[in-house]
């Protein structure tokens, strides 16, 4: 029996890319390990640049004064909360269709980070709402949908935790994520449908943003920083989940031996 299964031996016929090379936990594990530091570093750099732009380059807003600077984490966090749910639902769907273990692991690796960003979006939204609207919490369409999204994240994590068999837990949670993904459009269009108190989406694909360029730049850079961070966090958690679930396999034993 070969001492260590050489990943290189998985090479397909020459000239064809093996798309599925990193689809098994064993081959994905080292790749994620190498990628985490890079994404974490990118996140740190982008965050520093974004904060510099946000606080030292972007001018003061006419109506809101300095309170608007919360936008540099509120909007990116809200974007990330919805984006991560979509990515989670995607991997959940892939896991259901292709019955691949790693997809389910990736979905449950993403959920806590998504829930974190949803809570951050709600928290910063409340703190921003206090000076501008006068109350901590307003039952308007987008805030309510964001709250529902947080409950969907908790539902996903609770369902995964409640079922003992990891394979069935992944598949059940995956179906729930797909059923919940219907909620994402409701969040996105809720401002237009129920056109309530919440400020209309100042950045939308149809019309030019109603914000100064530097404000927009700061927000975009912070969004990229949050994105890099999410990838780093999800890969790191995925590695933990892989070790937990593949604990009895040989390659994990060899990895533990090597890292001792």
């Amino acid at each position, binding site marked *: *029996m070969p001492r260590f299964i050489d990943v290189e031996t998985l090479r397909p016929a020459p000239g064809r890319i093996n798309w599925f090379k990193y689809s098994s936990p064993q081959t994905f594990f080292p790749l994620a390990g190498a990628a985490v530091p890079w994404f974490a570093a990118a996140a740190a750099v982008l965050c520093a640049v974004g904060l510099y732009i946000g*606080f*030292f380059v972007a*001018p*003061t807003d006419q109506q809101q*004064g*300095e*309170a608007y*600077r*919360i936008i540099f*984490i*509120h909007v990116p*966090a809200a974007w990330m909360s919805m984006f991560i749910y979509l990515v989670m639902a995607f991997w959940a769907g892939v896991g259901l269709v292709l019955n691949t273990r790693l997809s389910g692991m990736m979905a449950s690796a993403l959920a*806590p*980070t998504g829930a*974190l960003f949803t*809570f*951050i979006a709600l*928290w*910063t939204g409340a*703190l*921003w709402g*206090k*000076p501008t609207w006068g109350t901590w919490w307003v039952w308007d369409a987008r805030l309510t949908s964001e709250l529902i999204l947080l409950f969907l994240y908790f539902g996903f994590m609770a369902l995964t935790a409640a079922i003992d068999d990891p394979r069935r837990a992944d598949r059940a949670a995956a179906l729930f994520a797909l059923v919940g993904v219907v909620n994402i459009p409701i969040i996105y269009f809720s401002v237009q449908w129920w056109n309530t108190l919440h400020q209309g989406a100042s950045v939308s694909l149809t019309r030019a943003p109603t914000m100064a360029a530097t404000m927009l730049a700061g927000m975009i850079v912070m969004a990229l920083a949050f994105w890099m*961070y999410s990838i780093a*966090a999800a890969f*790191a*958690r995925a*590695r*933990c989940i892989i*070790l*937990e679930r593949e*604990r*009895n396999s*040989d390659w*994990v*034993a060899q990895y*533990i*031996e090597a*890292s*001792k």
Partner: protein
Amino acid sequence: MNWESLEAFIAMGGYGLYVWGSYAVTFALVALEVVLLVLRGRGIVAQLARIGAPRRRS
């Protein structure tokens, strides 16, 4: 440079509590998640090391 002095920067035009309240909580939560991830990683490796290699089938 928008700010004349550090005090103005911290006061944030009177909205210091809200702006720094949200930034502080955000980065505290992110730091907390990073710490939890590192602990979880080390914990699982240590646990598997303690348990030792599974019995060789051959």
